[in-house]
């Protein structure tokens, strides 16, 4: 029988099993904390930094990723303060300007409050979220792909392009990739750096009620556990 602890997230007291992360606890309850690199049941690494929250300890607040912070009894967490929303928006802006053609990433960015962007759009086909690797290695134990190189050169690759021998063609990596959906025909023109907001998410609600989580259709694999509004 698992032990349970009580944590306070945004003023709500939640009972969560010991060993769960704050992100797990929040999502289970229905508090949506935006996230990108998380793949359920696989150890989170805190790479995308979108799930940041304020962890209040002895009156002082520390910004940390909720996916790597394990629940503890009496913990106090704020997931949607103005500070967090501003920081999260800035991170989402960095991600969406790397790969603006991905509907999933656009949606995450819109949900994080990005409208105008302040950087020129790039046209990358990978944001290094690591979901493909997490599912390949973490879930299935295959070691066909991994992060290779460092810093700006970081990329997802098979060693010496040996994907034909190491990969089993299960297709799970494609299932979870935010780029692997019909690309948006939208904001790729220089000088028009703005997200049009015409993707499937219900942005009207989000604009009128800041901090309100909306169910959005990010595509299979990104389904937030919270029930849709309508």
């Amino acid at each position, binding site marked *: 029988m698992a032990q349970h602890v009580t944590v306070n997230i945004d003023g709500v007291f939640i009972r969560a099993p010991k060993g769960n992360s704050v992100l797990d606890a929040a999502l289970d309850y229905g508090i949506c904390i935006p996230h990108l690199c998380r793949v359920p049941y696989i150890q989170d690494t805190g790479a995308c930094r979108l799930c940041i929250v304020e962890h209040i300890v002895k009156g002082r607040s520390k910004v940390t990723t909720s996916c790597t912070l394990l629940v503890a009894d009496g913990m106090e967490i704020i997931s949607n303060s103005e500070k967090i929303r501003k920081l999260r928006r800035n991170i989402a802006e960095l991600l969406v300007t790397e790969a603006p053609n991905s509907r999933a990433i656009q949606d995450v960015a819109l949900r994080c409050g990005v409208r105008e962007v302040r950087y020129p759009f790039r046209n990358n086909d990978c944001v290094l979220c690591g979901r493909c690797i997490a599912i390949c290695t973490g879930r299935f134990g295959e*070691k066909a792909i991994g992060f290779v*190189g460092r810093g700006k050169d970081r990329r997802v690759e098979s*060693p010496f392009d040996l994907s034909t021998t190491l990969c089993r063609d299960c297709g799970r990596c494609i299932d979870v990739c935010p780029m692997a959906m019909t690309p948006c025909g939208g904001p790729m023109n220089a000088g028009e750096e703005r997200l049009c907001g015409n993707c499937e998410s219900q942005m009207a609600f989000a604009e009128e009620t800041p901090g309100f989580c909306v169910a959005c259709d990010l595509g299979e694999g990104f389904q937030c556990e919270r029930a849709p509004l309508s």
Partner: protein
Amino acid sequence: MPDASFSSIMEGRRSQPHQLIEVLQDVQSQHGFISEDAMKTISSELGVSLMEIYRVASFYKAFSLTPCGKNVITICTGTACHVRGANQILSQAVGQLEIEPGETSDDGLFTIKQVNCLGACALGPIVTENGDSHHHMSPGRLRRLVKSLYKADTEDSPHDKD
């Protein structure tokens, strides 16, 4: 890949995954680079997946996945050397050898590498080649050094018949 040298590198390290970096360093210093074959051998001897070895070999600057030139010219671009004009020395090397840092010349004689601080900061700018270190370098001194290395290597060549 000569098996004898590999045995000595793997001595005392078999089935110990945490020795990966030490093993790669020995392979790098003995063979000048880490080849696909070498990685496959290390994979089976250490019990580490090929993916993991490839990751480690591509992450650390000490390892090269392609063979280096005969003379590796390493230019220090640490802060102290930078304020003393390391950029000019890099410019000299790039202009003279017609390759960018990290690349090897077509004749296989030179590779230019950058390093971020060797700890001899008071004597910068520093350039090392073939285990030798040169201090207070200037673009002119580098030009003469490269010329002398080139001369030494091409004079030894039996094909130099003109």
